[in-house]
Each structure stands twice: as structure tokens, then as C-alpha cells.
């Protein structure tokens, strides 16, 4: 008895929509970023599972997982810096208005 493919896909779907709920509900930008990361990771699980099942000769799905890694890293770098920069900019604007 091994784990069927559908179980991986079910876990992937549940995690994806958990992250989707986080993006819909939370107001905090960093938390929204973390929820987007959860969604990307759920997509990674589905890609690897289907790549195992249908393309285990050339691993095309896993190649896309590597590209998703790249996009996630770029997104979190720019997103994080823009979040912190926007917070600092709002402090600067407040200081300018007060001063």
C-alpha cells in the first residue's frame, strides 16, 4: 500500500486555498506575501507529483518547480524591500508633514 497521487493533489489543493484565504482575508502586506509563498509551494507539490506520475523520464514538471523557486525568491526580495521601503517612506512623509 503506497500513497496514491490523488492524496498529494488533495494536500496541494488544501494548502493552495488556505493561502488563497490568507491573501483574501489578511491586511498585513508581509502576511499576504507569506500566503503567496504558501500558494506557490502548493503549486510546486502538484507539479512534482504530476511530474513523478507522467514525466519521470525527463522531469519537465520539476524543471518548472525550479523556475517557481526563482520567481518566489525574486518576488520575496522585491516585495519585502518594497514593504519595508514603503513603511520607511510613510515615516518620512509623516516627518515631512510634521516638520
Amino acid at each position, binding site marked *: 500500500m503506497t500513497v*496514491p497521487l490523488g492524496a498529494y493533489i488533495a494536500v496541494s489543493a488544501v494548502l493552495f486555498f488556505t493561502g488563497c484565504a490568507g491573501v*483574501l482575508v489578511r491586511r498585513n502586506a508581509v502576511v499576504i506575501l507569506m500566503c503567496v*509563498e504558501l500558494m506557490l509551494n502548493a503549486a510546486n*507539490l502538484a507539479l512534482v507529483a504530476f511530474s513523478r506520475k507522467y514525466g519521470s523520464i525527463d522531469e519537465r514538471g520539476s*524543471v518548472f518547480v525550479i523556475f517557481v523557486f526563482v520567481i518566489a525568491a525574486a518576488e520575496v526580495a522585491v516585495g519585502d524591500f518594497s514593504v519595508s*521601503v514603503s513603511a520607511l517612506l510613510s515615516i518620512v512623509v509623516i516627518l515631512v508633514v510634521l516638520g
Partner: protein
Amino acid sequence: VRLRRLRSARPADDDVTFDFVEPVVFAVLSIGVIAGGVAVVMLNRITAAALLMAFTFLSMAGMFVLLGAETIAAFQVLIYVGAITVLILYGVMFTKFSTSPRALFFQKQTPLAAVFVAAVAVPIAIVATLSFTGAPPRPGGGDLPALATSVFTDFAFPFEIASVLLLAAMVGAIVLTKRDDQEEAAARRRR
């Protein structure tokens, strides 16, 4: 420790007697993944949410090992657990958050979002469980040779595009912080 435990569990596939190990490990890992994701969405303490997100990513790496994708699992640990969690923790450290209790979560759109998510996720999970019943095959010798062959032959051009994307993200982050430094200095002078 989790990966090592999984590795030690993998030769049990050849042995018929210990065949129950893989579903048990899968159940533990899936509970870890889903509980971590729900905690990331529900928790108000952002540092705890970030650390639980790292826990979710580690459990996901264990799932990749269980699927036989060891290279992807190693990349997962390196990039997600190592880099992205640290970057997000830096973002948490450098920003100010309103810590009013429950103000961030309980809002008007929460029931709508819950209904939408349940209405979409539950049918997908049920249909996926009923449709794909066969177990994925176990590759011999890991997934690294096939992965490397695909990346450097068929996907060589997207690979270069990805490197350009990373360069653009790096330059963009530097430009964002640089502009902020100048404006902050100008504000300080004006003050």
C-alpha cells in the same frame, strides 16, 4: 532529522512487511503542511507565523523526498527554509505593525472568503482523491540526472531568462532602498 528519518524509511518499500510506513509518514507530513498553513493564516503574531511557514516548507520538503524528488527537496530546504524565511523575518523586523488584537483577522470579508475557499477546495480535494488513484512510480537513482538534462537542453533559454529575472530583482531591490536613503536624508536635512 526529518529528512534522515524519511531516508531511513524509504528502503521499506522493497520490503512488503513495512509497507505501512509510507502512508504513515505521508499522513504526518500532510498534517504538518496543512496545520502550518492554517496557522500562518490564522495567527496574529507575525514572527510565529513566519516560523510556522518555515515548518510548512520543511514538511513540504519531506513530501518531496517521499515522492522521490530529492533534488527538489534539497532546493526547497536551501531556498525556502534558508533564504525566503530569513528574508521575510528581516521584513518583519524592519517594519512596524499594528498589534491591536484581532483587528487584522476578523473583518467583514472573512465569512465570504471562508465560504469561497471551502466551496472550491473541498470539491477539488475530493475529485483529486477519487481520480488519481495509482501511486507515482519510484525512480531509480534519484531525479538529478533527468532534471539537469532537461534544464540544460530543452529549458536552457528559460534558464537564462530566470537568471536575468534574478538580476533584475536584485537591481530593483537595491534601487528601492537607495532611493529611500536619499529621501530620508533629505527629510532629515529639512527637519
